[in-house]
C-alpha cells in the first residue's frame, strides 16, 4: 500500500541504494564470520582479504564440536586451540530452558493476578515491580553474586538461572498489559458458571494469550541465549559455561600467538545459528515481537 509516488524517481533510487548499503552492513560481518569458519586453517593467511572461503572445508565445525579424533594429525598443528564447544552449546540450551520456561509461567500467573484479581497490596506491589525495571544490572550483580556464592551455587546451572527463573519485571509488565487489553466478560461468565481461578487461568488465559506468550518467549529466549555478564560471573567452569562465556575464554586463552581464527569463527557461527534459524523460520513473528517490545 505504498501510495507515495515521488516526483523525483532519482530520490527513490538513492533510497533503495541506501537501503541496500545498510543491508550489506548488517549482513557483511556475519558472512565474513561464516566464510572464515569454512576456510581451511592452513589457508587463513592467504585468504584474509577474500570474500569467499579458501580451501573450503567443514573441518573447523567438526573439530570445535569434538567430532575429530584427537590423534588426527591435522589437530596437532600449532596454533589450533583445544576448543570444546559442543559442551558449551549444550550448556546454553540447559541454561536458557531453565531460565526462560519457569520465568514465563510464573510471570504469567503474577500478571494474571495483577490484571484480574483484587487483593490487598496489589497496586503497591505492581508499582514496586515497575520501579525494578529502572534498577541497572550494574547495581544488582554484586549482591546477587554474593547471594549465589553464599548458597554454594557458583558454577551450577541453578545459580546461573535463579535470578531469571521466577520473574523478570519486564515479563510481568508485558503480560499484564496484554491481559488487561482483552475484555474480561468471558472470564466473568465462567466465574458465574462456577469455574475456579485456576481453571480460568489454565483454560482461558493461557490459550487466549498464546500469541502474546509466544512473543514474550521469543524476546526472552533471545536475551537469555545471548546473556554474558551474569553467566560469566557465576559459571566459568567447562561443565556449565555457556557459549558466550566459552567464546570469550577461547579468545583470552590464546593471546600469545596468532588466535585460532577459523576455530573461533566456527564457534561464533554455531553460537549464532539458533538465533539465525529462528529468524529464517519464524521471520514475521520474530520481527513483530521485537517491534512490539518497544510498545509501552
Amino acid at each position, binding site marked *: 500500500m505504498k501510495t507515495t509516488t515521488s516526483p523525483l524517481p532519482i530520490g527513490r533510487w538513492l533510497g533503495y541504494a541506501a537501503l541496500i548499503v545498510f543491508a550489506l552492513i548488517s549482513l557483511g*560481518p556475519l558472512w565474513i564470520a561464516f566464510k572464515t569458519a569454512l576456510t581451511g586453517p592452513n589457508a587463513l593467511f592467504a585468504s584474509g582479504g577474500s570474500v569467499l572461503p579458501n580451501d573450503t572445508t567443514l573441518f573447523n565445525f567438526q573439530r570445535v564440536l569434538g567430532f575429530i579424533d584427537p590423534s588426527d594429525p591435522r589437530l596437532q598443528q600449532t596454533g589450533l586451540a583445544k576448543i570444546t564447544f559442543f559442551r558449551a552449546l549444550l550448556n546454553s540450551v540447559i541454561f536458557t530452558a531453565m531460565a526462560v520456561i519457569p520465568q514465563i509461567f510464573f510471570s504469567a500467573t*503474577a500478571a494474571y493476578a495483577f490484571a484480574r484479581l483484587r487483593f490487598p497490596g496489589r497496586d503497591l506491589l505492581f508499582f514496586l515491580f515497575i520501579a525494578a525495571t529502572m534498577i541497572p544490572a550494574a547495581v544488582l550483580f554484586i549482591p546477587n553474586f554474593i547471594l549465589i556464592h553464599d548458597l554454594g551455587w557458583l558454577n551450577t546451572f541453578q545459580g546461573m538461572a535463579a535470578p531469571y527463573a521466577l520473574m523478570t519485571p519486564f515479563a510481568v509488565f508485558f503480560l499484564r498489559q496484554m491481559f488487561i487489553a482483552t475484555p474480561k466478560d468471558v472470564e466473568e461468565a465462567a466465574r458465574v458458571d462456577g469455574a475456579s481461578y485456576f481453571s480460568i487461568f489454565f483454560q482461558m488465559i493461557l490459550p487466549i494469550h498464546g500469541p502474546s506468550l509466544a512473543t514474550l518467549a521469543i524476546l526472552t529466549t533471545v536475551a537469555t541465549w545471548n546473556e554474558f555478564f551474569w553467566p560469566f560471573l557465576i559459571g566459568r567452569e567447562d561443565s556449565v559455561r555457556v557459549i558466550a562465556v566459552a567464546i570469550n575464554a577461547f579468545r583470552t586463552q590464546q593471546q600469545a600467538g596468532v588466535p585460532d581464527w577459523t576455530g573461533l569463527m566456527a564457534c561464533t557461527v554455531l553460537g549464532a545459528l539458533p538465533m539465525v534459524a529462528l529468524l529464517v523460520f519464524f521471520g514475521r513473528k520474530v520481527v513483530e515481537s521485537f517491534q512490539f517490545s518497544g510498545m509501552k
Partner: protein
Amino acid sequence: MPTPTPILSDASSPPLGGSRSHKRLTESEGFCGWLFITPALIGFTLFYLVPTIRAFYIGLTNWNLLRAPKFLGLDNYVRLFGDQKFWSSIWVTVLYVLYNIPVQTVFGLLIAVLLKRLTGSVVIRSIMLAPFLISNVIAAMIWFWMLDPVLGFLNFLLQSLGLGSHAFFSDENLALPTIAAINIWRHMGYAALLFYTGLQSIPEHLYEAARIEGASQWKMFTAITLPLLRPTIVFVLVTSVIGSFQIFDTIAVTTQGGPGTATRTIVWYIYQEAFSSMRMGYASAMSTVLFVGLVLVTLVQMRVLRSGESDLG
C-alpha cells in the same frame, strides 16, 4: 493485539479437589491473588528488592568476601570523590555514549523512513534485525577478527583503498570509537524497527494534506514525522542511553579496558574493583552512584524531550 476467543468446552470443569475449607480458600479472590503472585514475589524479593537495599549497605563497608564486612560509613563515597580513576572512567563512558547514541539514532531513523517509504517487507526487516539477535560477545568477536591488523578483512579493504591498515583496538584514539561502532552496528536495525512501528501510527492523511500544500520532503519530515514520532524517540533514546552507559561485554571481549585507560568505562571499572581487587564495598558504592546518575540522566532526558506532552491535536 486482537486474539480470537476460543469457545470454552469446559468452562464448568470441577474445581480442583480437596476439603471443603480448601475449596473455599481457592474460591477467595484475595487468597488466589496472593497465591498466583507468590513465586514472582519470591524472585522479586530475592533478586531485586533485597539486593538493591544490600547494594547500598555493602557500599558503606569494606568487604573482600573472605572476612566479615567492616562498616565504614560514607568513607567509600569520600574516597570515590577523590578517585582519579573513577572520574576518568565516567569521562570515558560519557564519551562512549556520545559516540554511540547520536549515530545509532540517526541511522535508525534513516532506515525506518526508508523502510516506510520504499519497502517494509519482512525479509528486509529481518536482515536489519539480524545483528541484534547475535550476542554482544559474538558481535565483538566477529569485529575483532575483521579488524585484525594482520589478517582482518576490513584492514585488507582499507589497504586496497589506499587508507592503510590500522590496529583499531590497540590505538588509544581508535579503540573507544571502534567499540561504539560495533554496538551501532548491532543496535541500529533494532532501533529502526522500533521507529518503523512508531511511523505506522502516523496518519497518512497528514502527509497527503502536506503534499497538496506543496510541502517538501524535508519539511514533511521535520513538521510531521519528527514531532509525531516523539514518544517513540523518547522511548528509544531513554532505553538505549541507559544501556549504553552500562557497556561491558564488548570491552571484556576486545580491549579489557585498554590500551592504557582508553576503554575503562564505569561498569568495567566496577567489575574490576569487585572481582579483580575484591573490593566489594567500593565497587558497590560506585554502582550506587551510577544508579543515581542514570536516574538523573533519564529525568533530564524526559524533561528535555517533554515526554509527557503530545503533539496531536
